[in-house]
């Protein structure tokens, strides 16, 4: 079975985890138009490279961030959300290409 290194609990079977989607910036709740919300809600990046994603360890109720390569499916790094770089929620696709 594939093993995910959880930052809180250590290596665990992937069946203990739930995928939470890409780490993306939230549109401005006061002023974003519908098109921007549609983009945020329904579309995701479909290219190659490294993805920064939310993952959830179900037995401990813990959300964290994993960096995974979209081609090799290799998990490169996992860390607590408090360690997200300041610019992580802005222009993340550009930052990873």
């Amino acid at each position, binding site marked *: *079975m594939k093993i995910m290194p959880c930052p*809180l*609990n250590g290596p*665990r*079977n992937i*069946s*203990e985890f739930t995928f939470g989607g890409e780490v993306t910036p939230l549109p401005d709740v006061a002023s974003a138009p519908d098109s921007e919300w549609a983009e945020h809600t329904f579309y995701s990046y479909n290219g190659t490279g490294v993805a920064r994603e939310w993952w959830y*360890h*179900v*037995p*401990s109720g*813990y959300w964290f961030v994993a960096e995974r390569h979209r081609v090799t499916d290799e998990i490169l790094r996992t860390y607590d959300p408090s360690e997200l770089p300041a610019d992580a929620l802005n222009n993340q696709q550009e930052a990873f290409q």
Partner: protein
Amino acid sequence: MTQSTESLQPDNGQFWAEAALSRSACYRRTAVAQPMLAAGGQQLPERFDPQDVERAKKAGVLDLSGLLRAGYRGAGTPELLGNAGLPIPARPNLAAAGADGDWVLRLSNTEYWLLGSLTNRGETLAKLPGLDACDSGCLDATPDACYPLFCMDSHGWLMLTGEHVSDVMAKLCGVDLREEAFPLGSIAQTSLARINGIIVHQEINGLTAYSILCDNASTDYLWTALIDAVQEFDGGPVGLASVVG
């Protein structure tokens, strides 16, 4: 609760369901055991038969769901633990025993669960503030940024005891829970027997013991899974008296 065990039984030796404040989710499995009461008035199995002690030394399964446990979350929790004279584990997924035999589990940076002492049947924890979920002022009773978690209502508590605990867990769980990888005071939050659980390595009166906390709704299932798993080690159900003497 000062009620004695004797007064809880009618003439035919059966335990009145009404005598205890609450019962474990798997009370039907322990119905044949001699009952006793925890400090809060909940029902606990005291003794199954004279072989309890022998089974507890090999691979015993003990239902402690009636014993008090509590949780607190928030940055103010260490202050509450300090005021109560309880230890504060150094990092997440570590547990530490208090002077009265209570255990403090640190499940994340700011979340702590407390397991009542088997010796005094949870008396120490019963004095902690904010644990009455029916009390609308329960939040005012705790320090700032310290929020009670009512894990007694959400989780069941089973305990595996004896020399074969890690062999039993190897059949149920993918994480290495042998002594060298999972020393005394370790916590594993993981999947066991295909349900989610919190496993804590403890020692009770010199006896190796793994506490397992799982969702209340799964406790009855886990009891059957554990009883099945301990058969090959000549283990089985045990009462609290076999562990605390």
